[in-house]
């Protein structure tokens, strides 16, 4: 337990080793991957040690004092809480680490998923000429996230919080040569930074009241009522703003779908265990703060509820497979936040726990699909992420298909996969707290979730092999509401010949060395690359993650076997039996969603385009994500940049030309005039001199 600090330090060490040493070596790519993966595996080992310690501790204490006392007293360990990091005046700033069940759980999830995702990246990133840099930043990212979950001091948490943001900036913008990616990276950093302004101010408020950033001292102060209620409420809402930014909650969610610009393993990491989880983790970690204020809790619940349904509706219409998953993530994060907001603490964090696995799996599967679609669709001007150009991949990529299905079913919340247990816990929690609106929204969201996930499955893995005629359709064929079919393509394509495409055009620069030979190989007219299963370094992690994605939820079966609720709870553990009504309602609703997707996208009994045509406005609004990006763009262009231009203009025109240059000009002009006083007549000078003396004399005489 005392060695928990090793986990982030190992990964940070890997980063510095790679940046300083590995990159100088001729085998920098291999070495850096090796070092990074070794470090994260080491971190996982640290987790195992810490976990067994904690378990032994818990069991020992439970045997001695009974279960209720166990968690609160003995399983929380503070490291480095006596020696300050630095000190100013009477304030000490510690770099305390906290090891309790929450951080242990996060430690496990983060290191496990990071490790597998890094292994997967070996395959996914192969051939990239900045391979080494990718692994270095992944290490830094893991280090920051591990530090974040271990931080027992809000300042330290904020430090790692920002480092996580930095790493996401670097990773999202990894393929920076495309303008959009660079913009997306910038957007992610700036948007989360806006939330961080709130977080910082909130933390500063707490600091002013207590004189410390130590979490336990602040929570003690809150519990003892030493902080004024309005401060608790204000600080609670402000701190939550940080989580809103990081976890992509409404209305700061806009960066998250764009963050798909990064390589897919990055998306998997960001969207499962690290970046976005940080926000939920913060709400969980600082729960005593929020719980002390009903207003703050209401605010959190409201934001979570809005986000859950709002993002789910957007996901219905997206075509980019990663965007579907991204909005799904936002929606699920809203779910968690909603749960925390209504007070279902355990349920919210439990859902974060299960979600991390199946969402990581979904992204990795999506990455696998994209990886195989990339050479296929290359040169057609079609995005390899577009589900409308996939189809029929089931047989070509069986491992990916089955793992994707497992993850989707789990996400949809079908018994007995892990998503079922956590989602059910949230719904039951909401019901138990009497929060009807969140409950209903939760049920509706469950329906939508099941629907859009199976829509993605059907479009990707079933149906016609639409990638075969992707080249035939012009790149911007207007708003496609429904995936094209072999029958509809000739109409869309017009006279365009499928075979006229010349392979090798517009190769993205970062793929150049890798893709070029593959293209040359398939450049024979009429013979395109075909999708194929990914190499084992990618497939194996899929299979490994599929296991926890399916069964991780079993540690939280209410009333039967529930160590999770025992370990991670706020206040007394409450035993809640599985509510058959809630469970059956949620499963039925999810099945209904799946059924609807089936009749719309697999066996087209209901035509999607008919629905879209009947409500075109609604469809466009959803497809354009409620026009949030446009609104923010307007805000930036018309307000922020206008303010900037205003400030710059004022500075040049008013302050510089007005206040500074004007006196200078006046001085010059005065000199121009006054120099004619210099007549060259000595007696005039003498006279002026006398006048001056007389004046001085008069002053002396008159005002002695």
């Amino acid at each position, binding site marked *: 337990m005392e060695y928990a600090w090793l986990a982030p330090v190992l990964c940070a060490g890997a980063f510095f080793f790679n940046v300083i040493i590995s990159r100088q070596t001729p085998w920098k790519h291999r070495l850096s991957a090796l070092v990074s993966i070794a470090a994260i595996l080491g971190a996982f080992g640290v987790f195992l040690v810490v976990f067994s310690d904690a378990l032994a501790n818990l069991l020992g204490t439970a045997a001695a004092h009974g279960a209720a006392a166990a968690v609160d007293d003995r399983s929380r360990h503070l490291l480095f809480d006596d020696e300050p990091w630095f000190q100013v005046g009477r304030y000490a700033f510690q770099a305390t680490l906290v090891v309790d069940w929450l951080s242990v759980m996060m430690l496990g999830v983060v290191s496990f998923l990071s490790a597998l995702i890094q292994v997967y990246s070996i395959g996914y990133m192969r051939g990239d000429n900045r391979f080494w840099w990718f692994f270095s930043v992944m290490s830094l990212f893991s280090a920051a996230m591990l530090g974040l979950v271990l931080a027992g001091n809000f300042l330290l948490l904020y430090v790692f919080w920002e480092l996580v943001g930095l790493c996401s900036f670097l990773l999202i913008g990894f393929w920076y040569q495309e303008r959009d990616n660079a913009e997306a990276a910038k957007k992610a950093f700036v948007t989360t930074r806006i939330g961080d302004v709130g977080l910082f101010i909130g933390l500063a408020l707490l600091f002013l009241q207590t004189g410390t950033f130590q979490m336990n001292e602040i929570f003690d102060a809150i519990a003892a009522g030493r902080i004024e209620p309005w401060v608790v409420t204000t600080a609670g809402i402000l701190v939550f703003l940080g989580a809103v930014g990081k976890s992509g909650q409404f209305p700061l969610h806009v960066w998250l779908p764009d963050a798909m610009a990064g390589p897919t393993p990055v998306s998997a990491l960001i969207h499962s265990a690290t970046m976005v989880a940080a926000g939920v983790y913060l709400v969980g970690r600082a729960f005593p703060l929020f719980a002390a204020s009903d207003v703050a809790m209401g605010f959190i619940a409201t934001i979570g509820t809005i986000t859950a349904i709002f993002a789910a509706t957007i996901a219905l219409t997206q075509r980019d497979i990663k965007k579907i998953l991204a909005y799904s993530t936002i929606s699920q994060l809203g779910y968690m936040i909603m749960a925390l907001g209504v007070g279902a603490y355990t349920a919210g964090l439990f859902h974060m726990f299960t979600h991390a696995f199946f969402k990581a799996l979904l992204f990795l599967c999506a990455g696998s699909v994209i990886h195989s679609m990339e050479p296929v669709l290359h040169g057609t001007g079609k995005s390899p992420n577009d589900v409308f150009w996939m189809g029929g991949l089931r047989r070509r990529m069986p491992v990916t298909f089955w793992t994707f299905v497992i993850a989707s079913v789990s996400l949809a919340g079908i018994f007995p996969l892990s998503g079922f247990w956590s989602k059910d816990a949230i719904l039951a929690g909401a019901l138990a707290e009497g929060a009807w609106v969140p409950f209903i929204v939760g049920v509706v969201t469950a329906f939508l979730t099941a629907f859009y996930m199976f829509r993605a499955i059907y479009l990707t893995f079933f149906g016609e092999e639409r990638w075969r005629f992707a080249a035939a359709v012009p790149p911007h064929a207007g708003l496609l509401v429904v995936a094209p079919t072999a029958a509809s393509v000739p109409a869309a394509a017009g006279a365009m010949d499928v075979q006229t495409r010349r392979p090798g055009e517009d190769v993205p620069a970062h793929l150049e060395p890798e893709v070029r030979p593959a293209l040359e190989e398939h450049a024979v007219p009429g013979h395109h690359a075909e999708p194929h299963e990914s190499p084992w370094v990618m497939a194996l992690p899929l299979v490994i993650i599929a296991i926890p994605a399916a069964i991780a939820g079993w540690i939280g079966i209410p009333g039967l076997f529930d160590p999770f609720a025992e370990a991670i709870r706020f206040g007394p553990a409450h035993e809640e039996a599985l509510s058959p009504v809630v469970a059956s309602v949620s499963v039925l609703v999810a099945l209904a969603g799946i059924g609807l997707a089936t009749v719309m996208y697999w066996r087209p009994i209901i035509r999607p385009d008919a629905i879209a045509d009947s409500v075109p406005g609604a469809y466009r609004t959803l497809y354009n994500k409620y026009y949030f990006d446009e609104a923010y763009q307007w805000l930036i262009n018309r307000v922020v940049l206008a303010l900037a231009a205003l400030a710059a203009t004022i500075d040049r025109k008013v302050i510089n030309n007005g206040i500074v240059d004007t006196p200078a000009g006046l001085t010059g002009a005065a000199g121009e005039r006054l120099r004619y006083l210099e*007549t*060259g007549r*000595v*007696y005039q000078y*003498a*006279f002026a001199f006398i006048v001056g003396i007389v004046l001085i004399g008069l002053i002396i005489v008159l005002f002695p």
Partner: protein
Amino acid sequence: MVPLEHVLVFSAILFSIGLYGVMARRSAVLILIAIELMLNAVAVNLVAFAAYVDPQQFSGMVFAVFVITIAAAELGLGLAIVLRVYRMRTSVNVDDLDMMRW
């Protein structure tokens, strides 16, 4: 002895006359002459103070000696300049010497 004030008034009159000369005259030589008058008035003042205010120290007289010295030096230099100017411009009229205005 006369009161100190009377001596001071005398020197003030001398000084003002010199001042008038400096301002009213056009010839450089005459201006120098007027300056001599002013310096002389100052020396009178110094001597008077030495006699009336500070009889033990007579610093005023020492200063008067210096004033006379400086006056002589000034006059010598001034006249040398006048000579030089005259050779260049065949005039000692200060109104003609306005090359260095604006």
